[in-house]
C-alpha cells in the first residue's frame, strides 16, 4: 500500500514539473540579443581591466575594442530573433499530451517490467526473521571481526578453522589452521584438519601438501583417525588400492566401537552391514556434527566424481581425466559406472589410438573391461 502512495506522489511531482512553469505568470523575458549583449559588455570591461593592468598594448586594445563594437552593432542590426508569439492553442495540445503521457507511459512501462509485489529483503532482516537460516554466518562474522583486531589470537583461529571447513570455505579453513599452528604450535587435530582442508581445496585430492600435513599429524598422534583415514584415501587415489584397503581394515579393527569414523571406514570397505552392526546405543554418544561431516565427506567425494564426469562429457579429449574417473569409480565400487566411463572414454579417444589402448590397459589393471 505504502508503495503505491510513493508511486502516486512521484507521478504527481513529475506532472507538476511539466504543468507548473506553464501556470506561473510570467514577466516578459529579455530578448535573446540582450544575453549576447551582456557577454560583449563584459568583454569590453575585461579589455578595460587588461589595459589598466598594462598587459595589452594600446593599438591592440583599440583593435579589440573595435571588433567587439562591431559585434554589438551586428547584433543590433539583426534585431530580435524571437519569433512572433504563436497562439496558445497548439501549445495547449502539446502540454495536455505531455501531462497525460507522464502517468500513462510510466505506469504502463513499470507494469510491464516491475515486480511491485516483491518487498525489499535486506539480509539482516531476513536473518532476524529466520534465525535458523544461517546462524553460523553470524558466529563466523563475529569471530572474524575479533580476529581482524587480534590477528595473533591463536585460540580464535583454532575455533574458527573447523567452522570454516563445515561451511565449505576450505581456503579460509586452511589459512586458519596454518595461523593456529603458527601461533599455538602443531597438534594432531590441527595438522589433520589442515590436511583435510588442503585436500578439500584441491577438490578432494590428497595432494603432496595435504599428505605432508597428515603425516605430521600421525607423527604427533599415531592413531589419529582423520589422518589415517585420509592418508588411506590418498593411497587409494594413487591406485594403491590394496594398501588403502589394508589401512582401512586396520582402522576398522582398532577403532573404538563408538568412533564416528567407523561409518566412513565401513563405507570405504564396502560393507554396509558393519554400520548396522555397530551397537545402537553407542550411536547416541556420537557427536551429531561429526557424523554429519562424515556424510558430507561422502557427499563431497561423490560430487567431485560427478563433476569430473560432467567435465569429461563436455570435454572428452582428456585421456588422463578418463583414467581418473575410472579409478574413482572403482574405488567407490561403482563398477557399472566405471565400465560406462571406459566405454565413453574409448569412444572419445578412439579405441585404436595409443591413448585408447593406454586407457584399456589402465582399466584392465583395475578389473574393468569394456566388453562384458
Amino acid at each position, binding site marked *: 500500500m*505504502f*508503495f503505491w502512495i*510513493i*508511486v502516486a506522489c*512521484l507521478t504527481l511531482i*513529475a506532472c507538476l*514539473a*511539466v504543468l507548473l*512553469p*506553464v501556470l506561473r505568470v*510570467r514577466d516578459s*523575458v*529579455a530578448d*535573446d540579443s*540582450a*544575453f549576447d*549583449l*551582456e*557577454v*560583449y*559588455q*563584459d568583454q569590453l570591461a575585461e579589455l578595460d*581591466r587588461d589595459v589598466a*593592468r598594462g598587459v595589452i598594448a594600446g593599438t*591592440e586594445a*583599440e583593435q579589440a*575594442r*573595435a571588433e567587439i*563594437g562591431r*559585434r*554589438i*552593432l551586428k547584433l543590433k542590426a539583426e534585431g530580435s530573433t524571437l*519569433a*512572433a508569439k504563436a497562439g*496558445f492553442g*497548439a*501549445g495547449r495540445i*502539446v*502540454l495536455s499530451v*505531455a501531462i497525460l503521457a*507522464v502517468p500513462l*507511459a*510510466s505506469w504502463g*512501462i*513499470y507494469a510491464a*517490467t*516491475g*515486480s511491485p509485489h516483491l*518487498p*525489499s*529483503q*535486506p*539480509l*539482516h532482516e531476513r536473518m532476524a526473521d529466520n534465525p535458523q537460516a544461517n546462524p553460523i554466518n553470524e558466529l563466523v562474522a563475529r569471530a*572474524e571481526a575479533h580476529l581482524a583486531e587480534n*590477528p595473533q589470537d591463536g585460540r580464535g583461529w583454532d575455533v574458527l578453522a573447523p567452522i570454516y571447513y563445515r561451511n565449505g570455505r576450505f*581456503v579460509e579453513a*586452511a*589459512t*586458519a589452521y596454518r595461523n593456529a599452528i603458527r601461533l599455538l604450535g602443531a597438534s594432531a587435530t590441527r595438522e589433520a584438519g589442515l590436511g583435510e582442508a588442503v585436500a578439500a581445496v584441491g577438490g578432494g585430492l590428497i595432494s603432496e601438501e595435504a599428505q605432508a600435513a597428515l603425516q605430521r599429524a600421525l607423527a604427533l598422534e599415531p592413531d589419529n583417525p582423520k589422518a589415517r583415514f585420509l592418508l588411506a584415501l590418498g593411497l587409494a587415489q594413487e591406485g594403491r588400492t590394496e594398501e588403502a584397503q589394508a589401512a582401512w581394515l586396520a582402522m576398522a579393527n582398532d577403532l573404538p566401537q563408538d568412533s564416528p569414523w567407523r561409518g566412513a571406514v565401513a563405507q570405504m570397505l564396502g560393507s554396509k552391514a558393519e554400520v548396522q552392526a555397530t551397537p545402537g546405543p553407542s550411536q547416541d554418544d556420537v557427536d551429531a556434527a561429526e557424523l554429519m561431516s562424515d556424510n558430507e565427506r561422502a557427499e563431497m567425494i561423490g560430487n567431485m566424481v560427478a563433476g569430473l564426469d560432467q567435465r569429461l562429457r563436455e570435454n572428452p579429449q582428456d585421456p588422463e581425466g578418463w583414467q581418473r574417473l575410472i579409478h574413482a569409480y572403482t574405488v567407490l565400487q561403482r563398477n557399472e559406472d566405471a565400465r560406462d566411463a571406459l566405454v565413453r572414454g574409448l569412444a572419445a579417444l578412439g579405441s585404436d589410438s595409443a591413448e585408447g589402448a593406454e586407457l584399456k590397459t589402465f582399466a584392465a589393471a583395475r578389473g574393468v573391461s569394456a566388453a562384458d
Partner: protein
Amino acid sequence: MIVEAGHFALVLAFVLAVVQFAVPLIGTRTGDDRLMAVAAPVTIAGFALTALSFAALTMAYVQSDFSVVNVWENSHSLKPMLYKVTGVWGNHEGSMLLWVLILTFFGALVAWFGSNLPASLRANVLSVQGLVGAAFLLFVLATSNPFARIETPPFEGRDLNPILQDIGLAIHPPLLYLGYVGFSVCFSFAVAALIEGRIDAAWARWVRPWTLAAWVFLTGGIAMGSYWAYYELGWGGWWFWDPVENASFLPWLSGTALLHSAIVMEKRSALKIWTLLLAILTFSLSLLGTFLVRSGVLTSVHAFATDPTRGLFILFILMLFIGGSLSLFALRASSLTQGGLFQPISREGALVLNNLFLTTATATVLIGTLYPLLVEAVTGDKISVGAPFFNMTFVPLALPLLIAVPFGPLLAWKRGDLYAVTQRLYAALGGALLTVLIALFFVDGMGVLAAFGVGVATWLVLGALTDLALKAGIGSVTTAVAWRRFRGLPRSVFGTALAHLGLGLTTLGIVAVTSLDVEEIAVMKPGDTLAVANYTLRFEEMTPFQGPNFTSDKARFTYINAWGRELGEVISSKRLYTARQMPTTEAGIVTRGLSQLYVSIGDPTADGGIVVRAWWKPLVLLIWLGGLVMMIGGTVSLLDRRLRVGAPAARKAKPKVLTPAETPAQ
C-alpha cells in the same frame, strides 16, 4: 519496496526525458515560450528521480538485498561497506545507471545555472540533453535493468570482481563519467546552435565553463585510472595503450582541442564551424568509448559482461547521435557566418597549430584503436596494435606540440612577433638547455633522447612560469608593483600557466620513468637480498593473513639504502578472494620523494622460494601530480569572473556603457 520505488522512479525519469526532448523543441519551433519554460523544471525533476533510483539501488547494496539480481551477482554480505557502495557501479547495469545519473545531473546544472542563456538556446540545449538522456535511460531499462528481481533470493551473493575491490573504484569511474558525460553539454550546445542556425562569440563564452569542467573531470579520471592500474595490477606499468585506455584518452585529446579553439571563437569570432565540429566530435568519441567498453567488442576488466543485444543497442545510439549531429552539421554549417582573419604567427595561429596537432593525434590514436577491429571484420585476421605503434606515431606528434606550448600564451592576438616572444623566452630556453646538459653528463643511464625529453619538460615548466612573470611585469616594474599586478592577474591566466606547468610535470615523470626505471627479478628465500637501483631489499618472511572476504600470503621485505641503513618495510601480498576463487597481487609500494620502490611477488617455486619482481621508478609520481596540477589549473580557470556573466535584468534594461564601443577607433 524501496527497490521497486527506485525502479518506478527510473521509468518516470525516462518518460520525463522524452517530455524534456519533445516539448521545449516544439516550443522553440513555434516560438511558444510557455513550452520552452517547461524544459528547466522537467530537467531538474528528471535528475531528482534518477538520483532517487540510484539511491534505491545503493540502499539495496548496503543492505545486501539479494532479491535484486544485480546485488546478488556483484555483492557479498561480508564485503566491507565501502565496496558495497562502490560495487553499485562496479558492474555493467550499475555503471550505466551512474552514467545516466551524471547525464541528468549535467542537464540539471544547465537548467539551474542557465539563467544567463537566451531562452530559446537554453530550451534547445535542454531538449538535446533530454534526447541523449531518453536514449540511455531506454538502454538501461530495456537491456540492462539493475532492478531485476529474484522471487526466492539466495542467502549469499557472488561477490564483486576482486580487482575492483579497491578505493580506486570509488573515484575513477565517477570522475571519468563526469568527464565523458560533461562533454554532452558541449554537444547539446553545438546541436542547439545548429538547430537555431545562429552562432556567435557569446556562444563560445557560454560553452566554455562546461568544456572546462568536463575536461577537469576527464583529466582527473584518466590520471586516477592510470594510477589505479599502476598499483593494482602489479605490473608496474602506468599506461598500456590498451583500447579501453585509449577510449578515455580520445575525448581528452579532442576535448583539449575544443578548449583551445573555443578561446579563439570567443575572442575573435573565428573558427566557429571548427569549434562546433569539435564539440560534436568530442562527445561522439565519448560515446564511442562507452560503446567500445560496454559492448564487449574489447576484452578487459572493464567489459563486465558481453551481451550482443547491448552492443547493438549502443551501436544504434551511437549512429543516431553521431550520424544525426554530423548530418545536421553538414546541412547547416555553410549557413553560419565566417569570423575574423588573422596572421599565421599570432595567438590564433598558435591555437590553430595546437588544434592541428591535437586532432591529428586523436586521429592516430583512433586509427590504432579501431584498426584491429576493422581488420578482423574485413579479413578475419586477428591482430593487435600495441605500444610500439603509438610510440611511433603519437610521440612524434606530441613533441613539436609540447615545444610550441610556451610560445602560445605570449603571442599577441591577430599579429604576433615570434622573434620578440623568443627573446622573452630566452631564460626558459637557457634553463631547458642547462637541464639537458646536466641530465646528459650527471645522470647515469640517460640517453640523448631522454635528455632531450627532460629538456622539453623543463622548457614547459619554465615557459609557464615565464608567462606568469611577464604578465606580472617582474623585471620591468618595481617588486611591489609586480606583486600587486601578479595578484591582480585574471584567474584564467593562472589557469593557463598551471595547466601548461602540469603538462610539463607529467612529461618529466613519463620521460624519467621510461628512460631510467630499474627492474630486477629474482627468486628469493627468507634472508635473501636483492639490489634495486640504490636500495637493497631483504626478504624477511611470508605470513598468512585472513581478510574479510579473502585470504592472503603477505611477503615482508626490509629496504635498505646504499649506506646500509634499514629504512622500513615493504609488504607485498597475493590475495585469494574466496567467493570467486580469484587471486590478485597486491604490490608493495614505498614512496621516496617523488620516486617509488615497487615490489610485486609471484608464485612460489619448487625449492621454497618466491619469484620477486621489483622496480625503482624515478619521479613516477610526477605523472599523476602533473595531472593534478592540470586539474587545478582548469578549476582556477573555471573560477574566472568572466565565466560568470549574469543574465540581463529584463527587457527594459538598456545597455548603458556602450558609447566607447559604438564609435570604434579606427
